[in-house]
């Protein structure tokens, strides 16, 4: 009777061997890429908001200080998000009837809060404290990126634990002098190595603290 498998099937068999192996690794490789891609991390994706607030305009343009709105950043774990009042300190005078500020006025009138979409959001089992980072020389832009260039705010980093650890394992690489904390333009200078070592001393970060920065208890309770 006739052969079921022709000559070609041999090459098929060989191909399938190669294909199987490379397919396996290829698949997981792809998954890995997707995990780090903006698709999952929301990195670099400007968030539409009820009120299209532009950090670029307010910070770069008007030169407002971060702390004008994010009042508790030095005092508390939570940087604070401005109440409608704060906006109205100016917008009761300027752009009083700009349509884009309608929700703003609405909120004040009905005293219903504005609804902002969170851009930099950590899961509930992560306990991040802004004040201590500010105190120990970690500036805003280190985590939030060049906010002064964001017409609509986006997430500058993945905020994955691995990313947090990169810094927690060598904070001196990111430490800045006190006066640079709120400087959005700050980049580690070429001699950051020496400066960092010095800053560790200035900020009283002992060796023991450095090791402690890797404890799970630093962020998880």
């Amino acid at each position, binding site marked *: 009777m006739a052969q079921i498998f022709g000559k070609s099937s041999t090459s098929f068999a060989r191909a399938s061997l190669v294909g199987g192996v490379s397919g396996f690794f290829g698949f997981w490789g792809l998954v890995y890429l997707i995990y780090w891609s903006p698709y999952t991390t929301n990195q670099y994706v400007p968030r539409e908001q009820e009120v299209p607030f532009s950090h670029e305009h307010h910070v770069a343009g008007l030169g407002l200080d971060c702390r004008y709105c994010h009042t508790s950043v030095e005092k*508390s774990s939570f940087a604070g998000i401005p109440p409608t009042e704060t906006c109205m300190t100016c917008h009761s005078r300027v752009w009083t009837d700009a349509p884009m500020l309608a929700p703003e006025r609405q909120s004040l009138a009905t005293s219903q809060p504005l609804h902002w979409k969170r851009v930099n959001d950590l899961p509930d089992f992560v306990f991040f404290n802004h004040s201590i980072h500010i105190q120990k020389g970690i500036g805003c832009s280190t985590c939030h990126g060049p906010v002064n260039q964001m017409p609509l705010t986006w997430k500058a980093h993945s905020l994955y634990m691995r990313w947090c650890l990169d810094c927690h394992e060598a904070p001196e690489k990111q430490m800045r002098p006190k006066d640079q904390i709120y400087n959005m333009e700050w980049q580690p200078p070429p001699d950051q190595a020496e400066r960092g070592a010095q800053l560790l001393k200035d900020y009283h970060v002992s060796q023991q*603290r450095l090791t402690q920065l890797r404890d*799970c208890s630093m962020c998880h309770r």
Partner: protein
Amino acid sequence: MKEAAQVEQVKHTKPAPALDLAAIRARLNGERGQHYWRSLEEIAETKEFQEMLHREFPAGASEWWDGLSRRNFLKMAAATLALSGLTACTKQPTREIYPYVKQPAGLVLGEPLYYASSMLLGGFATGVLAKSREGHPIKVDGNPEHPSSLGGSSVWMQTSILDLYDPDRSQTVTHWGEISTWALFLSDLNDLLLEQAARKGAGLRFLTETVTSPTLAAQLHDLLKRFPGATWHQYDPITRDNVREGARLAFGEFVETRYRFDKAAVILALDADFLYTHPERLRFTRHFADGRRVAAGKKEMNRLYLVESTPSVTGTMAEHRLPLASSEIETFAWEVVRAMGGPVRMANEQPLSKLQTKDGSPWIRKEAVAQWLAALVRDLKQHEGASIVIAGEWQPPVVHALAHWLNQALGNAGKTVDYLEPTEAHPINQLQSLRELVQDMESETVDTLFILGGNPVYTAPADLQFGQHLAKVKRSIHLGLAQDETAGSSTWHIPQTHYLESWGDARSFDGTVSLMQPLIAPLYGGKSAYELLGAMVQQQPIRGDYEIVRDFWRGQNFWPDFEISWRQALHDGFIQGSGAPPKQVKLKADLLESLPRGGEPASGGITVEPAVGSQSAKQETAFPQVSPRSFKVLSGDIEVNFRPDPNLWDGRFANNGWLQECPKPVSKLCWDNAILISPALAQSGNLTTGDVVELSLGGRSLRGPVWVMPGQAPNAVTLHLGYGRSRVGRVGAGVGFDAYALRTSAALWFERGGKIVPTGQTHLLVTTQAHHQLGSPDREVYRSGTLNQYLANSSFVKSSVEIPNMDETLYYPDEYQYAGYKWGMSIDLTTCIGCNACLVACEAENNIPVVGKDQVHRNREMFWIRVDTYFKGPLDNPEFDHMPVPCMQCEHAPCELVCPVEATVHDSEGLNLQVYQRCVGTRFCSNNCPYKVRRFNFLRYSPYDKPWREPMYNPEVTVRWRGVMEKCTYCIQRISAARITAEKENRRIRESELRTACQQACPAEAIVFGDLNDPDSKVARLKAHPLDYSMLGQLNTRPRTTYLAKLQNPGPQTDQGLGGA
């Protein structure tokens, strides 16, 4: 609870034959050395014990339909899947954030705010510090400055936060049970005011609980002026009438007695539970503990003699405890007086001979009692001016009078005892007052009744039939927290504000005026008593409780500058120096003569007859039948006692899950009350724990499960009030039986002549302990000794075990250096009174879920710190030992090595961390934990999707989801908060800044936590104490939590024969 009933049907159809108590007793008497035991059945080592151990479900009954979990069956599944997403491979969902429109001044988002306020129980105020986050109160603790708290907490204080958010709280005004409004009520109020104005208030009545609030009292007095015909009645089911009457007998007037336990060397308590039920419990506990603490160098300890019918928290602390029926204590008191040389005219010359003897109960020997008494008196005489005699609220006035006489005779007055102006605004005989009210209601002379707080329909003595008479009242207005029994039968019900929702004032036991201030606007639009009464005076405009209270105090003008002092007072939570000054009182000259003749003690003797036809008593009932056993009917001289429940008090906390699940101090029973009977009685009735009996007293009867309680007086039976509520929320529904059914105005606290008829049915009683057996003493888990032992050889506890070397480990002994902080805890077994404050405080601080009766039954309770109670010595009068067990935070932690995913890891300060979101739930850590302090979320226990539960979670602590392990963290959220504050100021954490929840709550300061690297820290010094030992240290786990062995200070005499057969 239909299902619950059915489940129990399935649960045990097994007969549970009674125990051979005689054998047990024999064994215990035969015991040498310290043999600890946990439960009767354990020492019996009966096979039945193994069954009793678990009246476990025969394989198959895998339901857990109890009040709690039944509610969120489907949501559970949904939420768990959702949560799985949180950690599994999914995209993080976009969440919204809502800023304030106007942010309140002084509020820093993410930082807590603390307010001083006061909590009332039994009318007396205790100062609290309430913690608030983003506008919701999340924790209540004692106010360290407040004289009657000193920073300590009671279980009720800690759990009060749960009542605030209770979704079953009354949420609307009701009229004849129909939803109505405050406005409608006001209009009706106006009508009645007009009527009453016309009739000068005849037929107008006010019924309140004990009132100490100056403002409220003033309001009431004003109203009484306006309506001369009106009367103000007070009734509190846990009334202190006996104390008042006792003082009147002794001094001719009512004075409060304040005891100075810190100054007392010898204490005699006559049925007084001054560490737990006394209004001044927290202060007393602190002082009592201070008198016991044996710091290095200190050589003295106070000594507690105690006579009581049922083991109380105070009873567990006694060196010498004599179990006598409550009704015999008067006789005993007379005997003490006689021995002190007081002129005694007794009904008969040898009253002691009338104490229960062989026939009545098989154990107590009158010679023994005589001996005991002689030794006691000797001791008292040796400590004149340094002793205290205190009588309990449950004892008749005579006993109080005798106690007063004794204190005078011993020269304690002015030294360890002093007398104060009554704190109550209107001290009256409450029972009498209620009687009068009921009579008026009966004769229909009452047409308007204001019930301000309380739940008289449920709590009033059964014979008064308050509920029925209430129906006769034309207009009854009930102000209460819940839609309870009284609300159900009142014309109007007004939802009351929780104390964290309203302004107010009240006096604490020593008279200090304590202020209440709200942390949150009334969640369910409640009104306070002030506002209700205020509305009767003025409605245009309605005055809020803030104005009312503030204006009252402004009116008092005893402050030069009101504003400043008022703010100061609010800040402190009380008015400095408003405490009552000691008062000079004179004992009646002919006191003893004038007193009614010595109590006629019982004839003794119990009739025991076979239970004929008790099997036929099969009413429709939730209780399953057990196969018939040779039950006996017990009647004759059985004394029935009524006591406030250690958790539910008079029933007001029945809907509080934390209190329902909190194991009762001695029995560790939860989610039920029981009829406590003595082993002797159980033996003669052939009864065992869980048997349902019919208990009748004076023509009334109730059905309830029996609990065999070691140390219970032979003929005394104890019922805890507060269960079996008929109108209560989802948590309390169908839990326990109503003991008020037997409680009459004739005998509020105890009465003889009870009859016990076994029904042949059984009921599942769950405890966190009785399902634990006990090991041989050589395990040396619990260590104790006497003061003399200690003075002879201070480190006698240490000698017993040898601790391996640090480097005896497979891994690197110096893996961790602990260069920075090194946290440790020391728990003093001498001063722990086993009050559970730590347990509930931990529950509140760490978002610990309530799991419900069925899950507790399956040993799945979630407490991060548990309080084990061991019994030691004779069955009828054992010694009680409490042992709080949190996580030991081992340096060589067995749990860490076996976790495959590093979900439990060591940190550089020596804590064993539990990282919930990394935990996959292999439970290997728990298996490898020798202390079994780890708790697992076998199902979804946390109701995190419940709108009422969310606002009270501590935002600093992760809420655990199904399938993860959890355990005590030494309150790591507090540690890291303190660390961050200190780091910002580049300094170390100060000892005062950081306390764990359990430490903060402990009224006895038995728990001390701190940094071991700081040699002067309190904890470091305690670890150096010779009494310090580590539980199971021989395993080389290097626990950071260690214990100070228990010391007792027994007198020279022995308690031979008080329980030894």
